[in-house]
């Protein structure tokens, strides 16, 4: 399991009802079911991953964040997880709204566009930055809604979500020492991880 998935798992208590949006190969939901006794389900856009997950006995359905969350009833889950996907959805604000409608808590991770390397590249070369995290050119990237940690905090405030916990981590998911300062986290954190609840 990736280190950032481990961090997510640590936020989720035993027996919780969890929906992992973008469940990939099902690692997180499998872990939550086996070690925490969670009722963990997945939604995944890649059909091969879906088949692989179901073939492993995991409850995963083919679908995506933009189109499938709307069909769940209010409070269907305790936690709704969105890993490294927010920047690639069509309507991030609506996806967040749906996550916090169907779940009491939302756990969101996304790559931070405020990282100093990106800022520096744009400043010095005048071209769209490319890094190991942001590795596709502007004309073919699926990441149509990049944001910074401060952007995300601003949206949470505007829409009245409570930030219960947040972390800035490096690409390998290791917690970084600057996590107490938003300003530093926004400059040095490559990935951000938020635990939100309704206001």
């Amino acid at each position, binding site marked *: 399991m990736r280190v950032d998935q481990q961090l997510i798992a640590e936020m989720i208590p035993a027996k919780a009802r969890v929906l992992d949006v973008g469940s990939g190969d099902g690692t997180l939901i499998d872990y939550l079911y086996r070690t925490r006794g969670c*009722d963990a*389900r997945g939604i995944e856009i890649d*059909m091969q991953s*879906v*088949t692989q*997950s*179901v*073939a*492993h*006995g*995991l*409850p*995963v*359905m*083919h*679908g995506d964040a933009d189109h*499938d969350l709307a*069909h*769940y*009833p209010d409070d*269907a889950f305790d936690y709704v997880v969105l890993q490294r996907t927010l920047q690639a959805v069509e309507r991030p604000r609506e996806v967040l709204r749906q996550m916090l409608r169907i779940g009491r808590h939302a756990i969101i991770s996304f790559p931070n566009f405020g990282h100093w390397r990106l800022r520096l590249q744009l400043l010095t070369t005048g071209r769209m930055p490319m890094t190991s995290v942001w590795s596709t050119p502007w004309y073919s990237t699926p990441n149509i809604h990049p944001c910074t940690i401060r952007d995300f905090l601003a949206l949470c405030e505007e829409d009245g979500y409570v930030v219960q916990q947040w972390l800035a981590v490096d690409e390998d998911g290791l917690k970084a020492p600057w996590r107490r300062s938003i300003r530093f986290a926004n400059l040095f954190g490559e990935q951000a991880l938020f635990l939100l609840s309704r206001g």
Partner: protein
Amino acid sequence: MDRSVSPSVEEGPVYTHQTMCLEEGMALECGAHLAPLEVAYCTYGTLSAARDNAILVCHALTGDQYLAEPNPLTGKPGWWSRMVGPGLPIDTDRFFVICPNVLGGCMGSTGPRSICAQTGKAWDSEFPPITMHDIVASQVRLVDYLGINRLFAVVGGSMGGMQALTWVADYPERVFAALPIATSPFHSAQNIAFNEVSRQAIFADPHWHDGHYRDFGAIPARGLGVARMMAHITYLSEEALSRKFGRRVRKEAATAVPAASSPSLFGEMFEVESYLRHQGSTFVRRFDANSYLTITRAMDYFDLAAEHDGDLSAPFGKCETRFCVVSFSSDWLFPTSQSRLLVRALNKAGANVSFVEIESDRGHDAFLLDEPDLDRTVRGFLNGAAEHAGLAKVEAL
């Protein structure tokens, strides 16, 4: 195709199925009472001491109970013998598998060929209209008779999937897991339209005799054959037809067709035509026209949402059943969009749902064919559900 074929006499088939006979019969949704009620069925594997490992497999429109053993009428392997058996995805080393012939069918369950107690004659076209609920109610009698309280799973493709959904809607506490494949929560207008053409082809046959063809020692073979030919097209896809037959012409066809009944213009057959004619002519040897009409009508009636003011999630509101919905990308008879509609309704109901659309160019029929992703999905879903149900592993049985 040959009109003089009589469906059951010529080969002297040896039936290997069992039959449950319920003297008191059962009431149908239409108000009629069918007595006695007979359900013909085959079973595979062993029922566990706890009676918790039973899987009911529901067959499609023209299927029957010969799931995993040679069919006595056709001599061909059971219709899902590649899926059900020892070590196969529906593993009979682990599960007790039951496959009943549907109510209204013609392979031993009560249907149009059965004797009507009131008249002492075969029902034929007077057989009362039945619904998917009636078909499932007859299966409930069988499951009761076998002493099984909760089925571990109900599995079915196409119309078999309609039965699986009806099982959960009508008896949610009796189904732990449901696996509806290549199916829909309602029969679409297009599918009703196809069924209607099938029925009209049967009615137009001079041997139809208002459904009393057996009194005349005849069967509406041409009409039923045409119905099957057309239906068969809907089970495939343009891609599958192109790949299998293309525009190839069958050279020897001219001699295979009786000259008198076929003008030369239609004498030289394309391979696809020859294939369909073969499908039609073999079908009429094993299937009864009145059964075909009865069961297609039951499919047409099927619409789970309509019974709940248009809310498809309502029938699943109280179920704890685990679902795995499977569709095929090239299935235009029961397209993925209808499965997705079902999945979203199940999500709304809070049900535990897996949903896989399998990439295949073989159309609706794909569920019966060699599709490795289907095998993996069925095996994985059943194993996962068995773990949640606390079923013993194979070794422990």
